């Protein structure tokens, strides 16, 4: 009776120890997940900030010059079309 009881309880303690370790790892993962979501949120707000600041700023960025060329092109096309219509 007594040895059987002892064996059962030793099983429990071994399982307990490994579970404690697993639990600590899971808590760590949860904390890192919270950190990751904070980074994600920050990244989102930065992307928004970048979107908003692009059209206003008069920087010499290639994309912007390209956009400008397209704008000039459409204006010119429109003018030609108007002339042809007249």
């Amino acid at each position, binding site marked *: 009776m007594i040895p059987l009881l002892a064996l059962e309880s030793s099983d429990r303690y*071994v399982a307990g120890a490994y579970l*404690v370790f697993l639990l600590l790892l899971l808590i760590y993962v949860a904390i890192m997940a919270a950190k990751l979501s904070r980074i994600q949120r920050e990244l989102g707000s930065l992307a928004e900030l970048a979107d908003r600041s692009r059209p206003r700023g008069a920087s010499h960025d290639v994309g912007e010059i390209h956009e400008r060329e397209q704008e000039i092109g459409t204006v010119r096309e429109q003018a030609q079309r108007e002339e042809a219509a007249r």
Partner: protein
Amino acid sequence: MANALNSITLRRLAIATVAVMAAGYALAFFAAPEDADQGFIQKIFYLHVPLATVALCGWIVAAIHAIRHLRTGDPKHDARAYVSIHISVIFGLAVLLTGAIWAKGAWGVWWEWKEPTLVSFLIVFLLYATYYPLRYAIEDRDRQARYASVFAITAGAFVPLNFLAVRLAQPLIHPRTFSSAGGLPDSMLWPFLVCLVGMALLWTTLVWFELDSKAASGNLKRIRRALEATA
């Protein structure tokens, strides 16, 4: 540590960790024989002792990074020392909890003051727990890093000295309760060594993970500053 492994990616490291740990614990539970004295409860040994060994080595690694930080003034080394201590403190908490469970299972008490290794570990853990209030109490970035490094070196020197002191405090004839790895039969030594390597890999993976996460949030802050300056 991180330097030597620079060419390996975090992903490969994580895969290696999972593989070695799975192999180690499979060996520990299915291949290693049951201990003649302690029975099944001895299986905690394969978890508890690698955790403790790796945590202590991690603190020593932190002291080495701290020395490099003071030598070079490069904040990269301070970040490594910080993260090494942080992961070792988490491992240390696991060591104390699994140690208490082992003591309860083997001797029927949750804490055993006569076991010098466990008591030494508690003292070292308490010391490293003060690393966080120390860092938070110093606002200046540069000074915080330097003071944290001085602490890491002091504490690193303290670790072996403390183990010696606590061992000396035990009566000389007290039997060693946790047999050290030297006295193990081969059939237990090999699983133990695989578990130890697995635990060391886990420590390295977590340190790497945490450092990457820190670097990512640091870069985000820099980008925000740069964007806000132009906007």
